[in-house]
């Protein structure tokens, strides 16, 4: 242990601890900007400078390790003056558009400026003039607002191993972007939006589609329906001030009705349906010697990643569409028929914890109903904004139920929101379908949690089913490289693009960190336990759907509406000059 003094208080910490962490133990919060625990620890912005007795210059607390007998002062007039100066320099190249900025009141730079009482910026000079990149249907880059903290680069490179953006040029001209400042839509960016989740400002943010939804809601000729992803009911509360992990399912439904949606449905319904189709696909592949291991296909960021970086492994992907797109295809066919509504007049909205879903719904093959199956995807953040605009504090609304039939679901559908949930839901169903017996214990706890790669063998009748579960694309690589090397003997793999699964998706409320992810995961399993039905094959609305419409799993209609194909892509542009 190392003992040091910070602001006249003694503290003992492990060797290798930083000054920032040691101060935290004393309840002293040293301000930071570029620092992001576990993701970006590079001491770039210098906001966290402190005085260390005997040191020639200020020391950045986020990267400086403690030393025995060290005497640190975090709040002397000189330190505060230095921090103000640093802030003023950052602000001297920042568009002062706070009032019209998407991150207004949820911006780390704005918070610092407020905390340090910056009321004027003494420095005037050239401003960064790189153009805004709004080429992607999911993510906008606005380099004018970039503070060059490199959090996005770290998350894209180290966590997701996509490497779609990097610092280029140098000094004042430094730009965080794809090579040659190419547009995001044209490169190997998987649209996961983890960059938008960690950006301290609005230099990277989701495409805002709320206006399109307001317009549809106001159009008397449109029948506007909405589906809510499993993770959103444990997220949306946070956007209006509720504690992380608050479950707001019933209030979310009530809020959506008050916004004017004609029907409030649930992606959990098609999550259950996914289990039936995907479970049968897995059994079929095992029986007929099909390509194994089979990998889940719910996560559109993961799909795009596979297309760019592992195109040779595409036959391993389940052909099932994601629950969002299954829902979209059924809403404008099955539901339209059942309700006697012309699908041309149905406007289908989905609420997702995800930016990649915005991209997914625009993929050219996602038009099985003859129309664009899902018209607009809103992230949890955007829905929070709509509630605010409508003056709805949903946490104070009475709970309401989803509309039948596409709003009926089970706990199995709900747990899709957490890493390991799809696997657990599949096991609950596959076990009972194969053995014909009731599961003695429905909770497959080995599937749960934040561990990057989870592995297990589950006995299903005579068959020991080997499974793997990964979250975050860097972890996915570990398992995918094993498959490539012929060293993987799994039957079934769940891959989720974002750390923690969808509850940590790129469209989640900001902030999202490990602690908050864990709270949301707890909430997902609490919600599962609350449900009367917890196995997908017991969902009566899904059973009815097969009876009335689809006929059987993997049948002709299923293939037409619920299954898809993938496109080989490259992770480099062509060499033509």
């Amino acid at each position, binding site marked *: 242990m190392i003992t040091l003094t910070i602001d006249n208080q003694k503290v003992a910490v492990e060797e290798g601890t930083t000054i920032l962490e040691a101060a935290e133990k004393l309840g002293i919060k040293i301000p930071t900007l570029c620092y992001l625990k576990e993701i970006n620890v590079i001491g770039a912005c210098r906001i966290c400078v402190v005085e260390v007795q005997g040191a020639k210059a200020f020391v950045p607390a986020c990267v400086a390790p403690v030393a025995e007998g060290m005497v640190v002062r975090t709040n002397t007039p000189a330190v505060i003056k230095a921090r103000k100066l640093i802030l003023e320099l950052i602000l001297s190249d920042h568009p002062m558009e706070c009032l019209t900025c998407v991150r207004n009141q949820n911006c780390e730079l704005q918070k610092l400026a407020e905390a340090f009482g910056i009321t004027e910026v003494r420095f005037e000079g050239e401003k960064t003039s790189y153009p805004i990149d709004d080429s992607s249907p999911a993510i906008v880059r606005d380099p004018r607002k970039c503070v060059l903290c490199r959090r996005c680069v770290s998350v894209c490179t180290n966590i997701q191993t996509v*490497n*779609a953006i*990097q610092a*280029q040029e140098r000094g004042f001209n430094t730009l965080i972007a*794809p090579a040659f400042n190419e547009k995001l839509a044209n490169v190997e960016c998987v649209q996961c939006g983890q960059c938008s989740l960690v950006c301290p400002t609005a230099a990277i943010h989701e495409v805002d589609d709320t206006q399109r939804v307001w317009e549809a809601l106001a159009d008397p000729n449109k029948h506007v329906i909405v589906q809510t992803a499993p993770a959103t009911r444990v997220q949306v509360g946070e956007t209006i001030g509720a504690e992380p992990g608050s479950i707001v399912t019933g209030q979310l439904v009530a809020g959506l009705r008050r916004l004017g949606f004609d029907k409030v449905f649930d992606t959990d319904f098609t999550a259950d349906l996914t289990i039936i189709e995907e479970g049968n696909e897995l059994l079929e592949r095992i029986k007929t010697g099909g390509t194994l291991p089979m990998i889940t296909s719910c996560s559109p960021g993961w799909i795009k990643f596979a297309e760019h970086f592992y195109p040779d492994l595409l036959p391993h992907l389940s052909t099932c569409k994601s629950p969002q797109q299954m829902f979209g295809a059924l809403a404008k066919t099955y539901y339209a028929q059942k309700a006697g509504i012309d699908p041309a007049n149905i406007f289908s909205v989905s609420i997702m914890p995800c930016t990649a879903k915005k991209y997914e719904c625009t993929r050219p093959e996602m038009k099985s109903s003859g129309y664009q199956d899902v018209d607009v995807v809103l992230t949890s953040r955007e829905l929070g904004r709509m509630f605010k605009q409508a003056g709805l504090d949903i946490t104070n609304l009475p709970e309401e139920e989803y509309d039948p039939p596409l709003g009926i679901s089970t706990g199995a559908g709900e747990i899709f929101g957490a890493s390991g949930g799809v696997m657990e839901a599949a096991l609950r169903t596959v076990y009972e379908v194969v053995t014909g017996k009731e599961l003695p214990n429905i909770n497959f706890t080995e599937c749960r949690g934040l561990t990057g790669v989870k592995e297990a063998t589950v006995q299903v009748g005579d068959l020991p089913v080997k499974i793997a579960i990964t979250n975050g694309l860097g972890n996915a690589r570990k398992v995918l490289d094993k498959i490539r090397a012929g060293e993987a003997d799994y039957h079934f793999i769940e891959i989720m693009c974002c750390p923690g699964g969808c509850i940590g998706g790129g469209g989640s409320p900001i902030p999202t960190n490990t602690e908050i992810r864990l709270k949301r995961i707890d909430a997902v399993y609490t919600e599962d336990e609350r449900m009367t039905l917890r196995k997908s094959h017991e969902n009566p609305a899904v059973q009815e759907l097969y009876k009335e419409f689809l006929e059987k799993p993997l049948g002709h209609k299923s293939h037409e509406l619920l299954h898809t194909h993938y496109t080989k892509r490259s*992770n480099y542009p062509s*060499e033509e000059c």
Partner: protein
Amino acid sequence: MATCSCGCGEDELTKQLDKIIDPYRGQPGGLIQVLTRAQELIGYLPKWTLIRIAKALGLSLQDVYGVATFYAFFSLIPRGRHKISVCAGTACYVKGTNMVVKTIRGHLGIKPGQTTPDSRFTLEIVRCIGACGLAPAMIIDGKDVHGRLEPEQIPQILEQYA
């Protein structure tokens, strides 16, 4: 192996580039060496070479481009046969860097960072070259120092480089 297929006649260059790359295949750490030698070969680093190098070393194009644009030594645009480096160190700056640049600009019609259409000269601004006593100064082709520059001398100096 894929080669440049746009009909630009780079096939022979591609082969030579691959010879430079080969010892470093799968080794991201070889990037600077490969970029340096590729620039020696071609004179600058066109986009297709960066892509080819990224693929071979196992790096993203972003990583390669980031390095190539960080170091002033690398150029992504064609360079002239002769490089004019005008010193903008403190002494030269005070004594007339702007005059030197303006005169060259007037004579050759190029801004710093640009190359003349006949590929004869590339103009660039550099930091202190350590010839403060000769300010304002410039170096041509990295070796010939021309100091105490007066506007009317400059065209004559440039004439010496064909």
